[in-house]
């Protein structure tokens, strides 16, 4: 049922998503044991190929792999292929010759995991590619919401912030839509991508309208240094108009939860206390991240070669 690679949520069926979530429920229990390790992936080699630096996601994948007893190798070509004069496909071919059982790819540019998957025999798991997709983030968000709300169907999810540059937004739009939620986005107009309605969402420039009746409010990270002045005038103005705090949260449902993919710019897109306290669920998301990545590694890297063949 599940394809060879996990490149994005866009291509997953609802049943596949649910299978990953159900598997993650089991995996989460392993993390509560005294000995947090099972032999499931013993003898398997998983390469974390991170072209873009990432502390959190890489650590999460590494812990997930180790809890399943896989040999996890971190490989971080520090610069783009343009600078080191080796193409991404050459890097992929080199890696392929070392026969890994799965390769987890993170790159600052959209499409790189797919192109690596095109030349690699092993399954490729996308750990975030540019502004394209971040499927494991969306899966851990689904898992978190499912725990909180029981099910996803019929919920209203409002994603707030830099949709234009966000892989988290795209993956979550696909993920929550496929599981039956209504998805809204809200952002200053320059950060609303062209033709975003084609993904089945409604775009708002009024945060208040976007939050009306929302069950889930997801704030996205604002890359201050890159965006302020170009896409919105200042972080102060952004925070005043689109930052999520308890006052603005009153427009959402009383039991709405607040999520953030991290790391949080406290006081910019999210108020301090929401980053730490309910209805903020940020650390639950992180905890679920390990379980989701264990499930993904188990389902994609744990198969016999014949089963995993294209």
């Amino acid at each position, binding site marked *: 049922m599940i394809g060879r690679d996990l490149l994005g949520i866009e291509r997953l069926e609802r049943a596949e998503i649910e299978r990953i979530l159900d598997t993650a429920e089991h995996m989460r229990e392993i993390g509560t044991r005294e000995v947090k390790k099972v032999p499931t992936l013993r003898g398997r080699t998983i390469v974390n190929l991170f072209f873009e630096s990432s502390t959190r996601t890489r650590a999460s994948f590494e812990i997930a792999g180790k809890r399943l007893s896989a040999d996890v190798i971190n490989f971080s070509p520090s610069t783009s292929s343009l600078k080191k004069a080796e193409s991404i496909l050459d890097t992929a071919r080199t890696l392929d010759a070392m026969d890994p059982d799965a390769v987890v790819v993170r*790159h600052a540019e959209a499409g790189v995991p797919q192109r690596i998957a095109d030349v690699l025999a092993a399954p490729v798991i996308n750990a975030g*590619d540019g502004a394209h997709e971040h499927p494991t983030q969306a899966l851990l968000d689904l898992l978190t919401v499912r725990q909180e709300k029981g099910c996803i169907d019929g919920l209203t999810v409002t994603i707030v912030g830099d949709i234009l540059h966000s892989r988290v937004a*795209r993956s979550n739009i696909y993920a929550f839509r496929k599981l039956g939620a209504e998805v809204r986005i809200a952002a200053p107009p320059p950060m609303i991508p*062209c033709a975003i309605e084609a993904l089945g969402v409604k775009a708002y420039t009024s945060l208040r309208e976007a939050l009306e009746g929302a069950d889930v409010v997801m704030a996205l990270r604002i890359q201050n240094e890159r965006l302020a002045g170009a896409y919105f005038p200042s972080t102060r103005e952004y925070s005043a108009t689109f930052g999520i705090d308890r006052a603005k949260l009153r427009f959402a449902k009383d039991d709405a939860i607040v999520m953030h993919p991290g790391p949080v710019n406290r006081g910019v897109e999210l108020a301090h206390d929401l980053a730490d306290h309910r209805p903020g669920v940020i650390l639950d998301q992180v905890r679920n991240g390990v379980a989701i990545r264990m499930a993904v590694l188990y389902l994609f890297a744990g198969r016999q070669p014949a089963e995993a063949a294209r």
Partner: protein
Amino acid sequence: MNRILLRGGRVIDPSAEHDEIADVLIEGERIAAVGRGLRADGAEVIEADGFWVTPGLIDLHCHLREPGQEYKEDIGSGGRAAAAGGFTAVACMANTHPVNDDPATTDFIIDRATHDSPARVYPVAAATKGLEGVVMTEMVALVEAGAAAFSDDGKTIMDGGVMRHVLEYSRLVDAVVITHAEDQTLVGGGVINEGAVSTRLGLRGNPPIAEVVHVARDLILAEFTGGQLHVAHVSTKGAVDLIRQAKDRGVNVTAEVAPHHLVLTDEATAEYNTNMKVSPPLRSEEDRDACRRGLVEGVIDAIATDHAPHAQHEKELEFSAAPPGMIGFETALAVVLDLVRSGELSPLELIRRLSTHPARILRRAGGSLAVGAPADVSVIDPARSWIYDVAKSYSKSRNSPWDGATLTGRAVATLVNGRLVYDVERGILI
């Protein structure tokens, strides 16, 4: 004297509004006669029954990469690929290393072409030194050296004051100024068309308005200066509309469109295939259809390949780092024959846009089968079905969107200056 009789073909000569079955006799470097039942009298006979016999195709816009990037292409390999695609002449852009911005480089290109290329090569010189958009090139000296037109193609002359003076000064030399019209501040680093596809893929979008805004500026400058503007690779409905309005007002402007913008859309980029990355980018269906309509209605005067070779290792980079461009000499004819098959263009009107108009825009002979004209002739089998195997291309590069595709229509013989330089069975002959 060399004598060749092309016998029994459908002779299509837009310069004479001529489209009927006839023979064409070539003597030496010239067309000697066109008519029925011409006697061979010892001439070499090429049977053209079922084929089109047309003035040689002329490509207004290509990149031959020599001097400086011979690992991608050189004047010889590019010229052979052109001849194999039915082109008897090509105009090569100035973005070589060094840039073709002085008479010595122009002279070098012409000299190389004389020795290495079966097709004629018309160098387009830079409009500004180093393509930097600041200091005008010596247009008078460049035209004397053989430059056919001026362009900073690949780059846009963003400074309106500089473009004004380039257009004004070009009136001295009777050569067109070819604009690569994209407002770079609006392109904003975009690598594919801004639209639903760029949003889905998470790639930075290059909005159609970047082209439209810049075309508007250049049309206003052309109207104001009286300079002769030629708009390269039109890709948007907005640009087509503006050019149509300008022509209606009598502005001195011509325009070209590339084959890929007539048949492909940004959906072709959906798998992050860098061979589909081109500048300007593949656009929406609406833009593509407007380009087709513009070509049919004569708003767009010519088809130009924008043949842009790049090495495989360069195209294997990240999408934004991979250089834009696709090769096109060998596939252009088959691709644009689509407009004849669809009924949008008659064969005569297609050849006008592939030969007669490009010759006129470049101020060069060609585009005609009149008696006494240079014997540059393409023989085309419009119905031939073939599979394009880019590994066998005469080009040094492999960045074609049509590798492995089954195409319909192909040049079966190419004659330049009275000599048979290409034959589909035997390949390049010189």
